[in-house]
């Protein structure tokens, strides 16, 4: 960009709208003519084209996409838990977790397809494999994962094919880790300021959230004497989630703001409350059934709310041109200053 140096905007202001009218009023009531060099700089402010967003807000629908994020993550952790439980001789935990994995995977795929503009063409997702598209990579993770997890859950329900079940379970578990985090790249690899800027923390927030959800569901749905590892997974996951979300909500200056304000702020506050209470209950429950059930449910609810909150924050940051323009302005100014520094 070849900026006209020394002429930032040259004093031009939009001729209509409240800001222009305010300035007009100030100018008239003040009566004092502005001193040279004072008026224009003092009025420097954020400009946009009639307040319209610069980028297009995602066309992804709620609740489809937030639920798809939640279910995929919970299913990924559940598959890992189920197979580990099977290998270490915890049949009840294995069954509960594998059923959650299968159910979560299937509904997750359902929500993904329902969100498409042309659902009948969903198989086009598997037409190519593109490492530059997190949705392509994700489809290639999700498709085999949901097939394997559903097969494992089916074998549990039928109570047959134990050897095949072990194999499909191992396959699902191998894809379980990527299932919990690829959706973070899916959100971050966009021009949405609040998602993109958080691309280093989002995978960990989603991983923690997925562990809290998968662990919580397993704790709530399996007998206490087998649920020890699930309790540990749920609690460590909740802690990872809380730390990563705190960094997302406070570490990125202006683009962290949508995570703390408006509907997203309220959703994430509720998420935090659920996660903290759920963690405390899970820790305190021991082998008592009711608190464990409640704690697990609260952790899962916290994960759901986190996904809705993160989704909403991104939408809010895309709709307000300020979040797009101001960080880019600051970046450009920094670069210009650095260039000027090296020149002199």
């Amino acid at each position: 960009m070849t900026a006209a140096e020394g002429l930032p905007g040259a004093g031009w202001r939009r001729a209509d709208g409240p800001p222009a009218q305010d300035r007009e009023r100030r100018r008239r009531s003040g009566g004092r003519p502005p001193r040279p060099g004072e008026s224009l700089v003092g009025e420097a402010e954020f400009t946009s084209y009639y307040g319209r967003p610069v980028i297009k807000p995602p066309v992804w629908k709620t609740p489809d996409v937030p639920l798809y994020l939640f279910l995929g993550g919970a299913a990924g952790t559940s598959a890992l838990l189920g197979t580990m439980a099977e290998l270490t001789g915890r049949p009840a935990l294995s069954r509960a977790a594998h059923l959650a994995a299968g159910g979560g995977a299937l509904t997750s795929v359902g929500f993904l397809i329902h969100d498409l503009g042309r659902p009948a063409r969903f198989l086009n997702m598997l037409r190519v494999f593109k490492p530059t598209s997190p949705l392509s990579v994700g489809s290639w993770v999700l498709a085999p994962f949901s097939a394997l997890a559903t097969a494992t859950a089916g074998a549990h329900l039928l109570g047959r094919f134990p050897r095949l079940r072990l194999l499909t379970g191992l396959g699902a578990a191998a894809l379980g880790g990527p299932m919990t985090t690829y959706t973070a790249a899916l959100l971050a690899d966009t021009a949405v300021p609040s998602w993109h800027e958080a691309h280093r923390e989002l995978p960990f927030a989603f991983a923690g959230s997925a562990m809290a959800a998968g662990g919580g569901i397993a704790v709530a749905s399996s007998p206490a004497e087998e649920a020890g590892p699930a309790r540990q997974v749920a609690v460590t996951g909740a802690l990872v989630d809380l730390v990563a979300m705190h960094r997302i909500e406070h570490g990125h200056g202006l683009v962290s703001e949508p995570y703390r304000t408006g509907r997203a702020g309220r959703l994430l506050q509720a998420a935090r409350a659920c996660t903290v209470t759920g963690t405390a209950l899970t820790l305190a429950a021991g082998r008592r059934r009711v608190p464990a059930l409640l704690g697990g449910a609260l952790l899962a609810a916290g994960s759901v709310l986190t996904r809705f909150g993160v989704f909403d924050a991104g939408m809010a940051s895309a709709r307000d041109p300020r979040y797009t323009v101001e960080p880019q302005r600051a970046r450009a100014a920094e670069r210009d200053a650095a260039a000027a520094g090296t020149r002199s």
Partner: protein
Amino acid sequence: MTTISSASTAFSGDDPRNRLFGPVPDVAGERGYGEDHPPRVGFFTDTSVCIGCKACEVACKEWNTLPMDDAEGNRAQLGLTGASYDNTGMLGANSWRHVAFVEQSRAVDLPMPTVGAPGSAGGQRPLEDPPVVHPGVPASSTTAEQSAPQQTSSGDREIRWLMSSDVCKHCTHAACLDVCPTGSLFRTEFGSVVVQEDICNGCGYCVPACPYGVIDQRQDDGRVFKCTLCYDRLTDGLQPACASACPTESIQFGDLDELRARADARLAALQDKGVEGARLYGHDEDDGVGGAGAFFLLLDEPEVYGLPPDPVVTTRDLPSMWRHVAAGAAMVVGLVASAFAGRRR
């Protein structure tokens, strides 16, 4: 013609340094087109001579049979925005050219001879009014001659009207193309970026990926649509419809190299005449998208026209994203495994 690649250059490109961002001298060649592919073409939109006639919008709508919508993308609705003469509102699935209208004013507070005591009511009035042909229009206001296009003065205010025809930038590193999971978006032999409508499944990923907010999903259709640089016309040796319709040559179509040279000359000419704020936007190969196939001469900051001041292709940070995704996944596997390790029941 060789295989048309919808895969990004990121993991197959010959130049390891510019796979996800940075200059790419031969963008079509890098995508697998042979030596005989045509040169990269694009638009140079010189907004200093745009008169806001919207012939480009109409020509585009007619040629591409785009449906009617209001300024928010709602189909078959008439929308009046109240934003100057702009009732198109934005680029979208049904508007592939969009003429922006910006009304601006400023106080004349440059030191100049005045009548009356300093600071009094008449103090801001210039001693001499500019010569007038029609009331309120300076004599030198033919676009070719005037030193400050689209500008006139009225009392102690100067008023100007910025008009600019926006379009898809056909980026060197196109985020929409990079993130498309179906391969529906592809790079043509002309270096432009086009959606194959028979493949698009409406996942909508390209919509928030575009740093300019160009591509959008069409209501009641589900697929995404955007400017094709009139791919059908190009293959028949014609100009894009908007460029042929533009009466002032504000929209210039041609080989990108030639357009860039023409733009540099035009910018120098305007700056010689003292036009404030003239700058090129999107012509720099070192910018965040590796240079745009459609670039602009603007008279104010990009955000005034609704353009991002410093767009960066989101996939520039993709290697970092994948590293963190992998680390997160490994953490989950490790933590789950360790929850079982060392427990015997």
